């Protein structure tokens, strides 16, 4: 690592330590989905750590994706409350930067970089999960823009978001991958309603969102009308290729090192080996992004292996508990109850494998 990155690393550690010691957050597993604190995101924004790879003209810091990896992995390591900006900073910003018009970029990106815009992700629908191209939410042309009607589900933090990314069908077509278009819309637009979905641990992070006759101005289309499928598959590489697909259970691994006995040496050693390799994959993905690529395959690989690792950390940690009773409020307990989502959100493992399999078959 070069020294400017080392400096960044130290600063991030220092900030997290200060917040933790002041009792301003409790380190948690899966914090990037579950710990929402706009004040923390604003603090990062003030330091120029949101949108840090974007051009200065849109509020960015023109740093590398390697620098962003240093930032994100240190935040995840600390179990810091990063959910408020995660989706906007990770994927909607980059997607708008890649395909959005100048005007849309100016409207959206500085707000994400300042932690003023909070984005949610409107992809999945009741009948379009793994089969994302089956989305039925419609976008109909009206004077000056589009009218949106439909229903999204599992929308994380829709109840706190100011903006939504939305994938909708703008054209009926024989081929389901054609006729899709991406939009940015305001969550306070008339006709948007959000209702909570509570998860098995009793927490509320995702929602169902209904759109009834919602107007979206023309310039809120991302990229090209009808090209949504190609664009969204590239966006998914931002969604899948980050260290949060490896480190959701890192706070549990950190605790494990305190309590593991010698009988677990090999198991812990194997986890360390896998973590080292996964980190190397994260670096590759970041380097590919620095080279201007959307590394679809590497990102799918990272997520496929990373989420299996996250889960296996919990298996080892559970073996280290002597009594056998895991408190649902402990880091391990919270992580076990969150773990079924790891291999599902952002694309199920089986679906990722089938994407990779198709590539193999094509060779």
């Amino acid at each position, binding site marked *: 690592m070069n020294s400017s990155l080392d400096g960044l690393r130290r600063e991030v550690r220092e900030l997290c330590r200060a917040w933790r010691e002041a009792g301003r957050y409790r380190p948690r597993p899966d914090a990037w989905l579950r710990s929402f604190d706009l004040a923390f995101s604003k603090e990062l924004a003030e330091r120029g750590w949101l949108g840090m790879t974007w051009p200065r003209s849109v509020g960015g810091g023109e740093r590398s994706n390697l620098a962003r990896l240093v930032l994100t992995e240190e935040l995840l390591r600390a179990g810091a409350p990063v959910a408020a900006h995660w989706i906007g900073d990770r994927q909607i910003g980059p997607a708008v930067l890649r395909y959005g018009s100048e005007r849309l970029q100016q409207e959206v990106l500085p707000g994400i970089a300042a932690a003023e815009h909070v984005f949610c992700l409107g992809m999945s629908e009741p009948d379009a999960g793994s089969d994302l191209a*089956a989305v039925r939410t419609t976008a109909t042309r009206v004077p000056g823009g589009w009218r949106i009607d439909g229903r999204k589900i599992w929308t994380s933090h829709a109840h706190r978001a100011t903006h939504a990314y939305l994938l909708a069908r703008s054209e009926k077509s024989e081929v389901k991958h054609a006729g899709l278009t991406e939009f940015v819309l305001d969550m306070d637009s008339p006709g948007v309603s959000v209702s909570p979905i*509570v998860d098995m641990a009793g927490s509320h992070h995702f929602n169902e969102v209904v759109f009834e006759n919602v107007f979206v101005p023309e310039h809120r289309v991302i990229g090209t009308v009808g090209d949504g499928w190609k664009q969204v598959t590239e966006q998914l590489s931002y969604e899948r290729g980050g260290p949060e697909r490896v480190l959701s259970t890192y706070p549990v691994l950190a605790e494990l090192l305190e309590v593991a006995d010698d009988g677990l040496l090999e198991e812990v050693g194997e986890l360390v080996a896998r973590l080292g390799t996964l980190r190397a994959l994260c670096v590759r993905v970041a380097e590919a992004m620095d080279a201007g690529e959307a590394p679809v395959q590497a990102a799918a690989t990272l997520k496929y292996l990373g989420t299996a690792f996250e889960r296996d950390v919990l298996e080892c940690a*559970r073996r280290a508990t002597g009594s056998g009773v895991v408190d649902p409020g402990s880091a391990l307990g919270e992580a076990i109850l969150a773990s079924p989502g790891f291999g599902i959100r952002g694309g*199920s493992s089986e679906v990722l494998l089938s994407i990779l399999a198709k590539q193999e078959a094509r060779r």
Partner: protein
Amino acid sequence: MSTENSLITRVAADVLSGVDPEAPADALHPVWPTLVELGWPQVGVPEERGGAGGSLHDLVELVAATAASGVSVPLLEVAVSRWVLGAELADAPLVVTTTGLEAVPWARHASHVLVRPEREPAFLAERGALEVVPGENLAGEPRDAVRVTGATTALPDAPSHEEVLARAALLKAAALLGAARGAYRHTREHVTQREQFGRPLVALKPVASSLAEMRVHLVATEAAVARAARGHEEDPDRALAATAAAKVTAARTATSVARAAHQLHGAMGVTREHPLHHVTRKLWAWRDESGTERSWSARLGRAALTGGEAALWDHLTA
């Protein structure tokens, strides 16, 4: 051999069908009095000892069926107490048995706690003689820390710590088997109804394979639990090792069945509203109760290394 389709399982399923697993906080599930009235906790205890008759296999099936339904009740804990006490304290509202004081099942609701520690003699404590600090397991079931603050009654005739642990572990393996059956049933139903890519999920090969894998684990666990139950009834010398094998098998099944069930349910399965978590959280919680998976494996490993191959083979083929 215990199977999903035995008569007793079907009778039990009738009793439990339509029962909502969700229970009011801080109270026993409303179905519990019915199970007590039907005499389920006394099944497997001979009538001459004040039990309800029936075999240990029958009790195993009742425990499994209860777990499969997703309800949380102290059936297993009370059944062990009845086995220890026979007709004694037959009218006490809720007597639970524990082998340690750190995480006592259902202590806050109990009228009496029967303690069979590893090193000290067994004793019985009334609720009034206990300080109870509430705790829970991953399934949200009471697992309270308990401190004895008052007078207790010695139980000089109680079975040994190991015998009590083995009985509890056998029934826990049965409960795991039941919860795994429940998870399998939910999953089967889900993947035959949910459509993606224009057809039911089960038409996708990886989905059908995962379902088959779940089934394989169920079949193996049924065999392991039946073998252990037979050990308890026919050959107490073999009971402990066969129980260890059943508990380890059931714990492994719990991990892989819970994983596959959630994977095949997609996001729907992680919601509070969907009933799947009533069985999967039990799978995660119970796999390490009544002796952790690791401690039971270590016990078998130690026995095999100490006894050598010939002893191992004799044990397997006994």
